[in-house]
C-alpha cells in the first residue's frame, strides 16, 4: 500500500529526482554559452522544491514508513531543508566556475549527492543508512576530482575516494556486528535489543568505535581528518564548500539519530568517547589552522574545529544538546557556505587563493569585504552573527550535562580561533596591494554570486539575531529523539 504519508515522506527526494531528469534532458539542447544556465535551473528548482516540501511535506507525529526503512519526523525534515538550501547555494556558486560551471554533469552529481544526504537524514535502518551514505559519497568523489586537467583536483578526488571507501568498509563491518548481536537492522529496535540482551560494555565500546570510523570521516573529526585540507584545497571551491557544510551536517544527522536512538542505555560510555574526540578535534583543528597561508586550507582546518564544537552538543545527550547541535549546524552551514562563496568569488575574479592575495580587498570591493567580515566573525563566534548564539547554546548544553571541562576546552579553543580569523581580516582591511592601486583592480561580483552571497549574509545575521524560529525548529527536531 502506498499512502499519502509515504508519499509526503519522500516528496523532496521524488522532486529532486525529477529535477535531475529535467536537467539531463534540457542541458544537451543548450548551446555552449548557455550551459551555465543549469545552475539557475538547479538552484531555482531546489528553491521550488523547498517551498513545496514546506507546504505539503511537513511531518506530523514521527512515523516509520516504507517498511521501517525511513523515519518521517522533524529531525530528518529540518536537515533535508538545510541540505537543499546548501545545494541551491552551491549550484549558484558553481555557475561561474571557469572549468566546471558550464558542465551539466556537475549539477547532476550535486543533486545525486543531495538525494543521498536527504536519505541519510531520515534512514531508520542500517541497510538504508549504508546505501544512502554511499549515494551521498560517490558523486562527491567525482566532484572533488572534477577538474581533470588540474593535478591537485585529481589528487583530491582520489584521496577522498580512498579514505572514504576504507572508512565506510570499516563502518559496514561495525554494522554487520550490530546485526549479528541484535538480530535486527532497524535502528529503533536496536535500543530494545541492547538494553535487554546481555551485551558487555566493552563490546558496545568497540562497536561504537568501528561505526565512528565511518561517521567520523564524514564529519571530519580527528583522527579521521587527514583528507580534509588536501581535498578542500584541490576540489573546485564550491564543492569544497558543499563538503564542509552539507556533507558534514549529514554526518551529524546520522550521528545524532544513531547514537541517541540505538544506544541510550550505553550513553555514559559513548559520550565519554565523543567528549574525548571533541576535545582533541577542536584543539587539533584550531592549532593546525594557525600556520595556514592558503585560505582554503585555513577554512578546512577551521571546519575540523567546528565539528568539535558541534560534538559538545552530542556529548551533552539531552534534548537541549540535540537542539543545539541542529542549531549549530544550521548556523554553520550558512556561515561556511558564505565563507567558501567569498573565496570562490574572489578566486573567480583574481585566480588567487592565498591569504596574502586578499590584501587590499576592502578597497577593491567594500561589500565583499563586509560579507567576509560577517562570515569570519560568525566563525569566530561573535554576535550579532549566527556563530555566537550557536556556540552559546552548545556550551550551555555542555554545562547542563556537567561537562564543564569540555566547555572550558571549547572556550579556550575559541580564543585560538579569534587569532587566526581576525588575522585573515587584517589582510582584507589593513594591508594594501603591492602598488596601492586598488582602484584599478576592482572586484566585480557576477549576478549568481551577488544573489547567493547577499542571501547567505542576511541568513547569517538573521540566525544570530532573530533566532527564535530556527531554535524552535531545532527543538522540534530534537524532541523526536526522546
Amino acid at each position, binding site marked *: 500500500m502506498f499512502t499519502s504519508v509515504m508519499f509526503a515522506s519522500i516528496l523532496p527526494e521524488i522532486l529532486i529526482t525529477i529535477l535531475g531528469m529535467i536537467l539531463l534532458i534540457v542541458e544537451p539542447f543548450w548551446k555552449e554559452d548557455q550551459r551555465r544556465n543549469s545552475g539557475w535551473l538547479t538552484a531555482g528548482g531546489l528553491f521550488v522544491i523547498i517551498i513545496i516540501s514546506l507546504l505539503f511535506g511537513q511531518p506530523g507525529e514521527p512515523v516509520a514508513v516504507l517498511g521501517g526503512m525511513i523515519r518521517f519526523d522533524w529531525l530528518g525534515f529540518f536537515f533535508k531543508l538545510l541540505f537543499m538550501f546548501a545545494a541551491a547555494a552551491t549550484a549558484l556558486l558553481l555557475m561561474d566556475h571557469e572549468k566546471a560551471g558550464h558542465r551539466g554533469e556537475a549539477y547532476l552529481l550535486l543533486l545525486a549527492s543531495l538525494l543521498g544526504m536527504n536519505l541519510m537524514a531520515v534512514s531508520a535502518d542500517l541497510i538504508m543508512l549504508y546505501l544512502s551514505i554511499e549515494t551521498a559519497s560517490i558523486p562527491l568523489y567525482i566532484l572533488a576530482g572534477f577538474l581533470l586537467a588540474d593535478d591537485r583536483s585529481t589528487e583530491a578526488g582520489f584521496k577522498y575516494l580512498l579514505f572514504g571507501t576504507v572508512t565506510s568498509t570499516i563502518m559496514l563491518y561495525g554494522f554487520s556486528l550490530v546485526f549479528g548481536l541484535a538480530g535486527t537492522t532497524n535502528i529503533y529496535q536496536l535500543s530494545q535489543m541492547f538494553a535487554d540482551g546481555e551485551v558487555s560494555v566493552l563490546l558496545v565500546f568497540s562497536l561504537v568505535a568501528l561505526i565512528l570510523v565511518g561517521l567520523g570521516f564524514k564529519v571530519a573529526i580527528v583522527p579521521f581528518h587527514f583528507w580534509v585540507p588536501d581535498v578542500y584545497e584541490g576540489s573546485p571551491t564550491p564543492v569544497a564548500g558543499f563538503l564542509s557544510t552539507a556533507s558534514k551536517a549529514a554526518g551529524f544527522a546520522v550521528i545524532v539519530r544513531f547514537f541517541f536512538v540505538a544506544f541510550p542505555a550505553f550513553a555514559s560510555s559513548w559520550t565519554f568517547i565523543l567528549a574525548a574526540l571533541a576535545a582533541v578535534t577542536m584543539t587539533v583543528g584550531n592549532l593546525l589552522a594557525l600556520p595556514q597561508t592558503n585560505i582554503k586550507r585555513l577554512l578546512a582546518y577551521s571546519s575540523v574545529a567546528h565539528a568539535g564544537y558541534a560534538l559538545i552538543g552530542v556529548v551533552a545527550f539531552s534534548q537541549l544538546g540535540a537542539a543545539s547541535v541542529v542549531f549549530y549546524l544550521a548556523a554553520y552551514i550558512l556561515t561556511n557556505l558564505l565563507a567558501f562563496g567569498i573565496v570562490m568569488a574572489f578566486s573567480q575574479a583574481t585566480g588567487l587563493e592565498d591569504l596574502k592575495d586578499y590584501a587590499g580587498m576592502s578597497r577593491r570591493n567594500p561589500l565583499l569585504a563586509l560579507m567576509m567580515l560577517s562570515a569570519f566573525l560568525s566563525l569566530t563566534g561573535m554576535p550579532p552573527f549566527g556563530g555566537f548564539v550557536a556556540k*552559546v547554546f552548545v556550551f550551555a548544553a555542555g554545562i547542563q550535562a556537567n561537562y564543564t571541562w569540555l566547555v572550558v576546552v571549547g572556550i579556550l579553543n575559541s580564543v585560538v580561533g579569534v587569532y587566526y580569523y581576525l588575522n585573515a581580516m587584517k589582510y582584507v582591511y589593513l594591508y594594501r596591494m603591492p602598488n596601492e592601486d586598488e582602484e584599478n583592480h576592482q572586484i566585480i561580483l557576477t549576478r549568481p554570486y551577488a544573489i547567493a552571497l547577499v542571501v547567505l549574509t542576511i541568513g547569517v545575521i538573521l540566525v544570530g539575531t532573530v533566532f527564535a524560529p530556527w531554535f524552535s525548529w531545532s527543538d522540534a527536531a530534537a524532541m523526536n529523539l526522546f
Partner: protein
Amino acid sequence: MNFPILSIITNLPIVAAVIMLMIPANRKNEVRGVALAAAIIDLLLSAWMYLQYLIQDMTGYQFIEQYNWLPQLGITFYFGVDGMSAPLVLLTGIVMFTGVLIAWGDDDKHVMAGIQDRPREFLAFLFILAWGVFGVFVSLDLFMLFFFYEIAVFPMYLLIAIWGWAKTREYAAMKLTLYLFIGSVIALVGVLAMYWVSYQNTGVLTFDMLHMETANFSASFQYIWFLPVFLGFAVLGGIWPFHNWSPDGHVAAPTSVSMFHAGVLMKLGAFAALRVGIMLLPEGAKQWSWLIMAIAAIAVVYGAYIAFVQTDLKYMIGFSSVSHMGLVILGISTLNHNGLVGAGVQMFSHGVMTALFFAVTGMIYDRAHTRQMSELGGMAKVMPFAAVGFIIGGLVSMGMPGFSGFVAEFPIFMGVWRVQWLVAVISSISIVITAAYILLAVRRVFFNPMPEKLEGHITDVTVMDKIAIFTLCFFMVLIGIFPSFMVPMMEKGVENILRLLGGA
C-alpha cells in the same frame, strides 16, 4: 511611560551604521552627517531619559521594556535602567557625540585631523561599538547583556588595527582582543553555570537577572564562581594585573576610539563585573572582597606611578586610566554605601575626563606629529581652548573640589577607610602622584617655550573640536558644582546593591 526610549537609544546606532554602509563610499560628508545626526539624537534622548529619572525622583528599575526573544530558554529583550546605569547611558551618549565630532575629517586642509581614510567604515564600526555599549548598560537579561558585551569587543579590533597608530596597531589590537575575549568567555562559563543552578533552585528557566537575584545560589557555588565572573568582566575594566592590554590599546587607537575605549568601554567591564559579579553573587563578593580591594589598591598606586614615569603623553594618560579605573574597582570592593556611590560617580567622571584628555592629545598629535612631552611646548598660546580643557581635565583627575573628580574620589576613600584604613592611606598616595604627573605634563606641553621646529606649524583646533571640548568640560564642572545632579541617583542605585548584599 510607554515610549520605548531605551530600545530606541540602544538600536539607533546600528540603524545609523547600516544606513551609512549603504551610502556610496566616496560621499564622505553625507556619511559624517548621518553619524552626527544620529549621535545628536542619541545624546538628546539619553539626556532626556536621565533628566526624567532625576526630576521625577524615580527609584529602582525604570523605563522597562520586555520582549520575547527565545521563550524556550527564557531569553528576553529586557531593557531597564536604575540609578547606577542611567548616568552611564548618558556618558555613552556624550562620548559618542564628541567622538563623532573629533573624528570629523577635513578632506581639504592638510591638517591630519579626524578620519579621512574610509570614514564610512570607521563610523559604522564605531557605531556598532556604541550599539554594544548601550546594550550592556540597559540590559536586565543576562543573555542580552552578554550578547551586547561581545558586540562591543570585536569592532575595537578593526578600529585599532585599521585606523590606529601604524607602529603598534597590529600588536596592540590583537593583544586587546585576546585579553578581552578570554575574559569574557571565562565569564560566560560562570554565567551559564548560574543559569542552570538558578533553574535547579527555582524551577524557572530564565536569564532574567532580577529573577536570578532571588535564586539563592549556595555559598560554595558563589565562592567558586565569583572570581571567574568578576575578574572575567573586570579585565575590560583594566584591573591589575590584567591591565596590560589597556595602555597599548589606548595608544595605538585613533583619537575617537581612544575616547570610546577609555571613556566608556572600560566602564563596561566595571559595570558588568558589578552587575553580574557583585549583584548576582553577593555572598561570593563578601568572601573575596579583600582580594579585589588589594589588587585594586595596587592598581591605583602602581598605575599612577607608571603614568608618572612616562615620556609619551598618550601612554601617560593610558596608565592614568588604569589608576583611575583602579579607584572604581576599589570603591566597588568596599561593598558599602560610600564606596559604591563614589565608584559610580567616578565611572562617569573618569569617562568624561579621559575622553577629554585623549581628544586634546589627539589634537596635539595631529598637528605636532609627536607625543613626546620633551618635544612639545607652548601649546597654550596656539590652542588656548584645548589648553583650558586639558587643565580642567587635569583638575578633575587630581580630585580637586569643585570638579567631578572630587565628588567621586572623596566618598571612595571614605568608604575604603571604613573597611580598612591602611588601604585608604596607601591608595591615597596616588592623589599626590597624579597631581605631580598632571601638573608636569601641563607645564611641559602647554607652557614651556615652544620648540623651534614646531614654531609656525601649529594651528588652532577646529570648531568641531571646540564643541567637543566644551561639552566634556561642561559635565565635569556641572557635577563638581552641583553634585545633586548625579549623587542622589547613584545612591538609589547603590541602595539596590546594598539590599542584595544584605544591608551591609
